[in-house]
């Protein structure tokens, strides 16, 4: 609860930057050191860090943030089609467009709070999903999803005389955004996004957002118009989602409506709560845990399970395989659901709370080791 200092902030940033940039090294022992997965960590990390600015600080639980993720992806693909394969205009336009959508949706949804706010955001996101899926087919290419084509205009590229043979890939001034360059591009944006979130967390603005979460009525009688505060937080977090959406399109220039579905909105809620909402690092831990285990569990099948349980007697191995099979592959979401239930019931503060509790154990043991004067000795 003590006040943050600039020195602390600097230390956090140095550590964070080092950790993100060296991720391919320290994630190697658990087999998570390939660019595709690393990129996923970074992209969903940005999504969760942004979501946490709204949910973690103000307590307003949006169930519709996938809409902004989708808007970001569509905008980015359109930018690739119409302007340039360079990722910078795509990223900038996506963030801007997501901001506009967030302003409109936030403006209406924030007329209510609590569960009604959540339902309004969910309704808006589902509307966006349905619009993208069918009504706005000319813009979104409906079911198939928006893709690149050979005859795309790419005005800026043409202007600079850049031409492509076949379907082009996304670039940063000629550097192709695949493999490690792709990851490092996302990583740099994650670091910048985290830095902004750190500044917000430790600013007067951030403190006021926390105060709104703690007691909004009191804020009004303390002289604050809370609506613009909430709307600003909502728009900022929507822009983070737009950035994440754009980066998904950078990795794979394709935007589908399913990216806007409520399950995608639910996923970011899950990741944030699992790691620890309202903490700086928590949402990133949540992303890491979920995306890592998703990668492992969803790839498992009966054969692998049989190999895993080969050390057991045959009949016991069969039972073990039958019992665990529903939790892997397509059933990965069942595992995720269980994990989420356990966290919410036993560790409502997420992984971060768990770490705090573990850190407090030595202190407790020390207290126990020093015998306190018992009341009996004080009495006559």
């Amino acid at each position: 609860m003590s006040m943050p200092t600039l020195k602390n902030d600097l230390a956090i940033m140095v550590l964070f930057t080092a950790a993100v940039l060296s991720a391919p090294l320290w994630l190697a022992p658990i087999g998570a050191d390939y660019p595709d997965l690393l990129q996923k960590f970074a992209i969903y990390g940005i999504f969760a860090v942004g979501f946490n600015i709204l949910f973690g600080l103000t307590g307003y639980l949006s169930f519709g943030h996938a809409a902004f993720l989708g808007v970001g992806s569509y905008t980015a693909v359109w930018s690739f089609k119409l302007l340039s394969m360079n990722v910078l205009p795509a990223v900038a336009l996506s963030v801007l467009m997501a901001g506009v959508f967030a302003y409109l949706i936030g403006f209406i949804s924030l007329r209510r709070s609590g569960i009604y706010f959540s339902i309004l955001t969910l309704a808006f996101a589902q509307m966006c999903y349905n619009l993208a899926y069918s009504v706005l087919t000319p813009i979104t290419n409906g079911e198939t999803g928006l893709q690149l084509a050979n005859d795309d205009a790419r005005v800026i590229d043409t202007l600079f005389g850049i031409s492509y043979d076949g379907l082009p890939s996304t670039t940063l001034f000629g550097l192709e955004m695949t493999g490690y360059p792709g990851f490092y591009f996302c990583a740099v944006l994650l670091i910048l996004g985290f830095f902004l979130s750190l500044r917000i967390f430790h600013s007067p603005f951030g403190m006021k957002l926390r105060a709104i979460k703690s007691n909004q009525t009191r804020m009004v009688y303390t002289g604050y118009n809370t609506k613009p505060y909430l709307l600003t937080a909502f728009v900022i977090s929507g822009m983070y989602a737009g950035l994440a959406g754009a980066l998904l399109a950078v990795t794979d220039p394709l935007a589908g409506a399913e990216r806007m579905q409520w399950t995608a909105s639910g996923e970011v809620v899950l990741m944030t709560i699992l790691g620890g909402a309202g903490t700086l690092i928590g949402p990133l831990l949540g992303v890491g845990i979920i995306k890592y285990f998703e990668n492992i569990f969803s790839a498992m099948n009966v054969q692998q399970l049989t190999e895993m349980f080969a050390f057991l007697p045959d009949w016991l191995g069969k039972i073990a395989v039958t019992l665990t099979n529903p939790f892997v592959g397509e059933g990965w979401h069942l595992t995720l659901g269980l994990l989420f239930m356990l966290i919410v019931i036993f560790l409502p503060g997420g992984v971060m709370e768990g770490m705090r509790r573990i850190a407090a154990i030595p202190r407790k043991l020390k207290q126990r080791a020093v015998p306190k004067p018992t009341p009996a000795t004080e009495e006559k």
Partner: protein
Amino acid sequence: MGDIILDIDKVDKTFGGLHALADIDLKIEEGKIHAIIGPNGAGKSTLLNVCIGRLEPDRGTVRFNGEIITGKKPYEINHAGVVRVFQTPEIFPDLSLLQNVMVPAFAKRDGTFKFNFWKSLSSEKAIREEAEQVLNDLGLGEHLNHHAGSMSRGDKRRLELAMGLIQHPRLLLLDEPTAGMSRHDTNRTIELLTRIKERGMTKIIIEHDMHVVFSLADTISVLAQGRIIAQGTPDEIRGNPKVQEAYLGGAEL
């Protein structure tokens, strides 16, 4: 008579069939401590709610410093200079004591909205020192970084008082500021309120504790069933038979 800072003019409020406030006329002089006493359900808290914009009266107006404040938003009334300390402590339970006091200090400085997201709290030395000062004045200086939600009720009340005082309001409305406090803390609060009286802050106090009322108030209004049945100096109120009957059950004060 000095300047009138708060002018409540024929304010009327009914809830369903209950006439909570009936044609209330009340003028508060600047720089004075005015106590409102009366039995439970007399309409005291309703009256304060009308003054801070929590409730809108059915009829009548409230003027603060010559300006009509009825119909204004609560945060606008706050910035006009009216601050209320609630009966059940309204604090920010998830923040530290220091942050609880810094938030209203920022409101005073930054207005109803300011997007100062790039500034670090650690560079806000002036606000922080002022907040520490106010907390020290109220005897909460040792708990600056404690979680406000885990403090005792009496400490929460003092904290809320600190949150009000840091805004330097022209008019401070106190709803039973000493309820739930020990005799020791009550005396300390009385002493503190007397001390800040010299700074020219006007106060309206709702209080059941007659010890507090008679040691602080310059003038007293007695409210019963939504009406003001008596008004005057503490001595006049003490001797008023109507008051003794309606409120004090005929007992000698």
